[in-house]
């Protein structure tokens, strides 16, 4: 579905090295790696936000619809949730259904900054879904939420993934448990410049733990 042929990316100093990898429909990928290694840089490259990476480095993106859950909600603060969803192409009815799906039924008229962090993130997730994405990019979706909200949001994401088996997902996370519960592939970014290692066998928590320990300590 998508093929990355990134030759490298540097911001003054090299961040990403050569990255050749493919993404197929229905892939559930967790992207891990140390803080500041370039995970968000990689997501931005995939989403086509990095103007210094040529279009041809991400084959197949033009025809894909991408939903991107940024670390901040990035909803337009001067627009109601309803208008934010309508802006990306959802009909009024679709927008209402999406808000219901993420547990925000009745909040359509609210401005994003009137919501708590967890609610705003769910609203942003609703916007991702409003474009009926082929590829869902989640950048640390569970960070800085309290445990109850994390559990709710994880259940929500799992439900969305189950309902749309064809949609591919890349989720940046630091939590091994997310890999087991959400993913069928693991991408691990490490080194300077960072290179990508991946595995398709993440089903067994004990093997995964061993694998991650090996990746983290070289």
């Amino acid at each position: 579905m998508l093929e990355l042929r990134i030759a490298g990316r540097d911001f003054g100093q090299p961040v990403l090295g050569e990255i050749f990898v493919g993404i197929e429909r229905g892939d559930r990928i967790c992207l891990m790696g140390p803080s500041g290694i370039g995970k968000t840089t990689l997501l931005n490259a995939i989403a086509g936000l990095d103007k210094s990476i040529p279009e041809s480095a991400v084959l197949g993106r033009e025809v894909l619809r991408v939903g991107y859950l940024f670390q901040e909600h990035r909803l337009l603060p001067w627009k109601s949730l309803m208008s934010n969803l309508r802006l990306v192409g959802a009909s009024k009815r679709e927008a209402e259904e999406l808000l219901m799906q993420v547990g925000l039924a009745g909040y359509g008229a609210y401005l994003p900054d009137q919501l708590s962090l967890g609610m705003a993130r769910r609203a942003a997730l609703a916007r991702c879904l409003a474009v009926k994405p082929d590829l869902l990019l989640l950048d640390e979706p569970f960070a800085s939420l309290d445990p109850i909200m994390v559990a709710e949001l994880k259940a929500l994401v799992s439900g969305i993934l189950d309902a749309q088996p064809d949609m591919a997902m890349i989720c940046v996370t630091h939590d091994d448990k997310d890999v087991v519960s959400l993913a069928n592939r693991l991408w691990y970014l490490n080194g300077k410049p960072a290179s990508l290692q991946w595995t398709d066998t993440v089903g067994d928590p004990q093997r995964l733990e061993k694998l991650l320990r090996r990746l983290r300590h070289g």
Partner: protein
Amino acid sequence: MNVGTARPPVWSYWIVLPGLMMVWAMTAGYLGSPLLPGPMEVLDTLVRESSSGQLWMHLGATLSRVILAFSLAMLLGTAIGLVLGRSRTFNALFDPLLVLMLNLPALVTIILMYVWFGLVEAAAVMAVVVNKIPNVAVTLREGARSLDYRLEQMASVYRFSLWQRLRDVWMPQLFPYLMVATRGGLALIWKIVLVVELLGRSNGVGFQLHMAFQVFDVSAILAYSLAFIAVVQLIELAILQPLENRSSRWRQPESVHA
């Protein structure tokens, strides 16, 4: 509370302005000179000029020049400012010119326009527009530079059209800059229009001031100035302030669930 920016309480206007009026009346009464007429005399002139229709005709002429020059300057200045703010190349090319224009005295532009194009309406309006564009451009350039790149990224992921970007992403962010340019713009344009009228037009408040100056009619000068100030304040209260309140409403929404 910030003493520098806080608005003074309303009562201060009701004390200071009448106080000023009394000082004026007393000084005028003491001097008894035609060079400083008292408030009643000025009021008389104001009533006379307004009932003869002269006041409205000249205020109208000035106002229409202000509106035309203001609209053109805002439109062109905003477009130029946005281009300069978003493109390093254009900024490198035009920044020196901008600095030059910012420091060019308004009077020079006015004289040159009249010399080159004659004492015609188009030259008068162009002189004002050319004076104002650099200020608008510089303000909006700052605005364009301050656009949130995170919302830009969002808009490109979700493939916003140019029109959507302009209306829903940029405009709300540029609004404070547009307001600054508008306020500064009106204040500057009012004054330049008067000079333009004084130097080369045969109607408008500036022209009337010129005529009054020729015959040392201080009462007319003061009457026209007061009428002028009243119109400017009216625009401020009726248009600018409601506009500003309306579009800053989203900035501090009641935090219901935070």
